[in-house]
């Protein structure tokens, strides 16, 4: 762009010293050529000078900086107090803290994830690597605990690319994590064989000689098993077996894995041995000279199991199997002693013996016992046959336990331990090192010896168990469970009426004491009406029980009396002819009640419209006849019905007069007279009269009607009016509209019999009568025209063809309801997912932010 077109920028730059020398030259050339621009420049220069002058007037004074610094100091001093938020922020942004936080977060994420998914952190480091094998003399050594990659590198550095064999091996790190891997290659690995699985074990530094378990010349050329030794002081062994896919090698592999798990000396030693033996077995099965090439290797790999089971020195045949045989039988016999003798005879004839015999006598004198016989296993079956014939066989169990594997395992371990012991002893003799090393060896020796003793004991125990079969015979005599005796328990309950309870009670107690009875409980009480009652429970000796009971009965009027006998079997169950019977003490319960039962009791029901007045009148007449008012009450229910109850005790002579007076107060609907005829009673005893006064009598006719009508509400209104006209009283009414459109009205009417028939006709006219039942009590009153009748009416309609809940609007409503429910549910789920995600998002954001900040500052 030309200067002229952008002259304002140029002249501004010129007056503010913003032009370079070259630009200034160009600018001046232009000014010289352009008068207009020159004039503008002049103006600008003047204006610039004006600005200089103006700003010079407002420049800060010389003390300005001092003031600023002082103020800064003052404000800082004022702010010296600790600001936790600031400190936290600064602390949190320190690089070390940031990285630590980030690492912690990461670890928490990993751990949290592992916890959620239930996965475990890898406890073992595994390296899979393929190397080509070649050099037969080189041993490869790599520290596993340092770095697996290092191993791989070392292995690779040793590999010879020209070698044709691919070997795949896995290194399992020992649990101690200190193992070192020593792999000594054997060039006679058959081509294409894959080696997998490893046992990695530690050898003591001080025992290099002992750590040479493998005869190199033997180890070479064995395709499927080997132990390899490193000349490193802390040498380790890598045991490996042939490809896991080969069926025949599973046993050996399992064994090797098991060995690899432990890191104790015994197992290590055993490993040596196992491997050696495996190698030897392999040598025998698969001639190394002839085994060359993949085909031979495959053939070798498919050898049967025994040759691939290196840990066991000799394969047990059927004869050498360690079987523990035992038998349990249960017999019911007539006599324990005689059978025991017979069993002894049988046992000795079968070259066995009775190891233990014990017996116990039950309460009924029968014996039960257990006999343990030891017999040679080959005689067990004949012995069992003979023993079974001695009684009724109730139960039998014959078992065989095969301990061959455990036995030979222990045996092998024992031998290894012994060898270990020798080795340790050897070390002790040769060791010239530190005392601590010596002590270590001593300690190890102690442990090994303990193991040896334990295993020897174990083997001896097994030997004993195997050499003799154990037969446990449980014997019990017949009728073992028969009861030894029966206890006859008797219980007598007596209930007495007495006019003077207190006296009777005292007499009864005295009687009990004179009979030397044991009083269990005695009680006398007086209730709120002043009536006395007493109870007495005693235990009587069986011989005097009858006499005492007879006396007790004479103390008052007997209301009830009953006795119960119970036989309780002792020491068994069921019946027995021979068992004796014992009489227990007789339990006697006596109840004494006040004898005020009136001779007669009359119940009277009277219908009267004025209950209260009738009640008062009855009370007055009863009192006038010298009667005693026992109770009286009046109740009035919400429907206006009144009911009165009056109970009076009248002298016998005034009874009839009073009853007549009561009858006059209304219409008698029921009269019941109860008479207790007892010996010694006479008619002079007082009579109880119980009167029930009610304003409403029971209907003589009860009718239930159901009417189907389309207009329930109108019809029920109409029938109410009709009822009012017919003199019927509406007792209650309900109306209900159900969701399906069904309407139901229930009405109950009460009306005099004379109006009954026309009203029922009116009801029938309402619609279709679907139900009609009449219940009539034919009594003398039924003929009475004013006798009440009750009609229960139900008017109902059919429901809608399409019920409301299936209608359009309800469907729309439901749809909306469900939709809003779904939306709310999704809102809740969003909340839940936010609650899940937010902390993680925030944590991640924080980490990212910290990392970004850290990077920006560095």
């Amino acid at each position, binding site marked *: 762009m030309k200067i002229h077109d*952008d002259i*304002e*920028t*140029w*002249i*501004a*730059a010129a*007056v*503010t*010293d*913003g032009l370079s020398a070259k630009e200034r030259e160009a600018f001046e050339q232009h000014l010289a050529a352009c008068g207009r621009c020159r004039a503008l420049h002049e*103006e*600008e220069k*003047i*204006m*610039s000078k*004006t*600005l*200089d*002058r*103006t*700003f010079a*007037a*407002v*420049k*800060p004074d010389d003390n*300005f*900086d001092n*003031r*600023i*610094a002082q*103020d*800064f*100091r003052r*404000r*800082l001093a004022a*702010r010296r107090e600790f600001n936790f938020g*600031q400190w936290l922020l*600064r602390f949190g*942004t320190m690089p070390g803290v940031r990285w630590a936080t980030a690492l912690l977060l990461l670890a928490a994420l990993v751990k949290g994830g592992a916890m959620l998914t239930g996965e475990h952190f890898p406890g073992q480091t595994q390296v899979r690597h393929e190397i080509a094998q070649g050099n037969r003399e080189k041993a490869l050594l790599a520290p596993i605990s340092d770095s697996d990659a290092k191993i791989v590198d070392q292995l690779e550095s040793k590999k010879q690319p020209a070698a044709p064999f691919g070997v795949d091996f896995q290194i399992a790190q020992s649990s101690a994590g200190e193992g070192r891997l020593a792999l000594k290659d054997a060039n006679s690995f058959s081509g294409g064989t894959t080696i997998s699985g490893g046992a990695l074990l530690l050898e003591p530094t001080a025992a290099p000689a002992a750590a040479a378990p493998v005869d190199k010349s033997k180890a070479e050329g064995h395709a499927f098993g080997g132990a390899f030794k490193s000349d490193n002081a802390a040498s380790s062994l890598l045991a490996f077996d042939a490809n896991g896919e080969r069926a025949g090698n599973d046993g050996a592999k399992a064994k090797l894995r098991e060995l690899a798990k432990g890191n104790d000396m015994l197992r290590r030693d055993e490993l040596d041995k196992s491997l050696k033996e495996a190698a030897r077995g392999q040598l025998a099965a698969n001639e190394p000279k002839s085994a060359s090439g993949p085909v031979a290797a495959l053939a070798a790999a498919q050898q049967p199991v025994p040759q691939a089971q290196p840990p066991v020195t000799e394969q047990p045949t059927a004869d050498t199997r360690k079987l523990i045989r035992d038998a349990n039988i249960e017999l019911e016999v007539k006599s324990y002693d005689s059978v025991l003798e017979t069993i002894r005879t049988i046992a000795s004839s079968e070259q066995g013996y009775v190891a233990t015999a014990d017996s116990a006598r039950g309460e009924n004198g029968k014996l039960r016992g257990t006999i343990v016989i030891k017999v040679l296993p080959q005689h067990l079956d004949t012995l069992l046959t003979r023993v079974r014939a001695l009684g009724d066989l109730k139960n039998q169990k014959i078992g065989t336990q095969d301990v061959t594997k455990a036995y030979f395992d222990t045996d092998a371990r024992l031998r290894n331990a012994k060898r270990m012991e020798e080795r340790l002893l050897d070390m002790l003799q040769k060791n010239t090192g530190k005392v601590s090393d010596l002590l270590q060896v001593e300690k190890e020796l102690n442990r090994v010896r303990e193991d040896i003793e334990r295993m020897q004991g174990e083997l001896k125990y097994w030997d004993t168990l195997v050499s003799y079969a154990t037969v446990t015979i449980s014997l019990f005599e017949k009728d073992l469970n028969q009861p030894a005796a029966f206890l006859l328990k008797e219980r007598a309950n007596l209930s007495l009426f007495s006019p003077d309870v207190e006296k009777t009670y005292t007499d009864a107690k005295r009687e009990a004491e004179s009979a030397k009875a044991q009083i269990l409980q005695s009680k006398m009480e007086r209730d709120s009406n002043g009536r006395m009652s007493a109870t007495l429970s005693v235990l009587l000796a069986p011989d005097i029980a009858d006499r005492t009971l007879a006396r007790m009965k004479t103390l008052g009027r007997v209301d009830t009396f009953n006795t119960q006998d119970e036989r309780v079997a002792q020491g068994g169950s069921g019946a027995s002819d021979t068992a004796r019977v014992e009489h227990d003490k007789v339990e006697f319960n006596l109840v004494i009640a006040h004898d005020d039962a009136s001779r007669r009791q009359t119940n009277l029901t009277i219908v009267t419209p004025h209950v209260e007045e009738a009640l008062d009148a009855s009370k007055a007449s009863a009192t006038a006849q010298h009667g005693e008012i026992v109770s009286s009450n009046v109740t009035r229910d919400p429907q206006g019905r009144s009911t009165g109850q009056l109970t009076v005790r009248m002298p016998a002579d005034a009874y009839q007069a009073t009853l007549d007076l009561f009858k006059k107060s209304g219409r008698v609907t029921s009269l019941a007279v109860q008479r207790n005829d007892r010996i010694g009673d006479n008619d002079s005893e007082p009579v109880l009269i119980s009167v029930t006064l009610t304003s409403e009598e029971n209907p003589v006719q009860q009718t239930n009607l159901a009417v189907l009508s389309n207009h329930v509400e109108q019809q029920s209104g109409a029938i109410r009016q009709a009822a009012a006209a017919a003199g019927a009283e509406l007792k209650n009414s309900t109306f209900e509209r159900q969701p399906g459109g069904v309407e139901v009205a229930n009405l109950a009417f009460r009306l005099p019999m004379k109006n009954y028939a026309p009203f029922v006709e009116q009801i029938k006219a309402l619609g279709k009568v679907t139900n009609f039942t009449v219940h009539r009590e034919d009594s003398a009153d039924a003929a009475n025209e004013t006798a009440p009748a009750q009609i229960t009416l139900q008017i109902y309609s059919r429901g809608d063809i399409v019920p409301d809940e299936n209608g359009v609007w309800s469907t729309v409503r439901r749809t909306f309801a469900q939709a809003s429910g779904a939306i709310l549910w999704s809102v809740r789920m969003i909340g839940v997912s936010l609650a899940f995600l937010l902390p993680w998002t925030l944590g991640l954001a924080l980490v990212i932010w910290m990392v970004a900040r850290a990077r*920006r*500052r560095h």
Partner: protein
Amino acid sequence: MEPNERELIHAALCGDREHFEMIIPLFSRKLFAVAFAILQDRDEAEDVVQETFFRAFKSRWRLRDPEKFPAWLVAVARNQACSILRKRRTVPLPDEAPEIADAFAVKPDEQTAGDDLHAHVFSALAKLPEQHRVAVSLRYLEGMSHENIEAAMGLSNGALRGILGRALEKLRKSLKPAIAAMEGEL
């Protein structure tokens, strides 16, 4: 930025109060120029400078690059000044320019032709955009070079020329009558 200045800033950012005080003279007048450009009030501008240093010290850990420190400091001062300006504007005023001119107006009896011109200058300055005012102020109040102004204002290379060009053009046009009148008087 010169190496020793850079080291000074670095020490101030990483160090304590004494180190930070050492950079106050380096920037105080620049900050004053910035604040004055916005507020056109010396006392308020000084307050802004004080507040700026205090705030910068409080949050110095947020900035570790000495190169960016001047621009950051200027930005803090500008924000501070703008917030004061906003607060001042909440008091309703009919016209800003005369009010600012009043602030610099000398008393009538002492009034001279030069003072009158100053009032015109500030009045014209007040009508410029904030960025233009800051650029002009840094140039004329502090006499800073183009490079330093650009660094302080965080401008890219060459942008300042355009800003100054437009700012001075506007000033010239609005001051032209006043300058002509004063020259006529002189």
